[in-house]
């Protein structure tokens, strides 16, 4: 199988309606790792993820995969902050990426049932997805993202607004996926979660890259003043 990683961003700039969202960002994502992207609200975290996934186009600079972009796309998945619940059952939601990629209905349904079991949704697999709770919706979105066994998964604040139990369960699912070889890039505001999961941390503020360092280094001796203020709970200017 062709690997799509490393992923390299070179001097990327994103502008929307005359406003610069990301400015001159250069990053290198190694083939293995659990990257946490941190930063205050409006710093450009979501845009950075969307840009790497191809949902946004850069105004300047480039996003380079080790394979072609065409090959890279099916090897990625994205879990949105507000998961989209398709108007169908839980099992059919999870199976959808398989069916979209030409897998037979029987095979995809059987695989989706396994995934529903893996993420703890087996008891609700036949009900309509819009009836799920917030935590269950995120689990469904993660199962749907992982069912095609992508090389890389982007997650945009997947545990926002969830209680401790649901957060722990989702972290468990993500940790399992990471241990299974899935590359993960995820945004979060939860410093505790970042400490628990991250192998490396990207910190951005006002659309500019402040720091990209191994997790131990980031939480032990943060270099940038913005990141230091953020970790101390101060207001980041």
């Amino acid at each position, binding site marked *: 199988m062709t690997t799509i990683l490393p992923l390299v961003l070179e001097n990327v700039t994103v502008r929307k309606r005359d406003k610069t969202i990301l400015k001159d960002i250069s990053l290198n994502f190694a083939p293995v790792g659990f990257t946490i992207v941190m930063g205050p609200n409006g710093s450009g975290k979501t845009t950075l993820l969307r840009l790497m*996934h191809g949902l946004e186009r850069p105004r300047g600079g480039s996003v380079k995969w080790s394979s072609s972009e065409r090959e890279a796309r099916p090897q990625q998945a*994205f879990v949105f902050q507000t998961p*989209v619940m*398709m*108007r*169908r059952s839980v099992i059919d939601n999870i199976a959808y990426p398989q069916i*979209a990629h030409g897998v037979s209905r029987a095979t995809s349904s059987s695989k989706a049932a396994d995934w529903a079991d893996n993420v703890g949704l087996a008891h609700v697999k036949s009900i*309509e997805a*819009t009836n799920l709770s917030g935590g269950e919706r995120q689990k469904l979105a993660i199962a749907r993202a992982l069912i095609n066994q992508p090389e890389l998964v982007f997650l945009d604040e997947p545990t926002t607004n969830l209680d401790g139990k649901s957060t722990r369960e989702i972290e468990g699912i993500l940790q399992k996926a990471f241990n299974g070889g899935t590359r993960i890039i995820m945004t979060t505001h939860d410093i505790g979660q970042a400490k628990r999961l991250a192998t490396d941390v990207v910190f951005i503020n006002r659309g500019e890259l402040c720091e990209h360092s191994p997790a131990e280094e980031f939480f032990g001796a943060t270099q940038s003043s913005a990141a230091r203020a953020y970790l101390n709970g101060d207001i980041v200017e």
Partner: protein
Amino acid sequence: MIDVWEGILQAFRLVYSLDRDLFEIVLLSLYVTLSAVIVASLIGLPLGAWLAVNRFRFRRATIALLNALMGLPPVVVGLIVYILFSRSGPFGVFGLLFTPTAMIIAQVIIITPLIASIAHQAIRDLWAEYHDLLISLTTSKKQRMKTLIWDARRSLLTASLAGFGRAIGEVGAIMIVGGNIDHVTRVLTTAIALETGKGDFALALGLGFILIGLAIAVNMAIHVLSKTERGGQW
């Protein structure tokens, strides 16, 4: 003045007596209307989905035109279809004038814009919600349309039922292209018009109540069959 009560009694009398002519008219009404709804849905629903998903030049103008066509005057449609299918018209060779087929064609022209427009609005809203997910999953345009049509099926059923509602009560166009010929092209609405013209208001009103009952029965049957009102379903 004719009593409404007399009309209701007349409707019961017609149904109770199992009037053969009445059942023939009812069956033809259903045949013409349901055929038109099926054909118009096959055209209108994918057209609505296509307009929602694709971006092209003059898209807004096309949608505005489609919305405007919802108000097509049936009499004008009937007249145009009449001219097209009359012996001297371009399609006169098919000999379809004064047949149920011509009535179906006229109704398809009237209700397709209505179905397509409602479908477009329903699918546009769903597309706004699904956009990032379906792009992220690298689906093809065909897959997106299929997914949106399937997931918007309840709203699309409403679109088709709106088309049914308009078609079952339509009289102007089918009167012109069908000719209201007894045992050939007479349907409930044209029969009502005829009886009203003859001054038999009680019978006209009775047929009217049967028409209303038929429209309600078909709508309810479709809702029950498609389980639209079940808790937590779409």
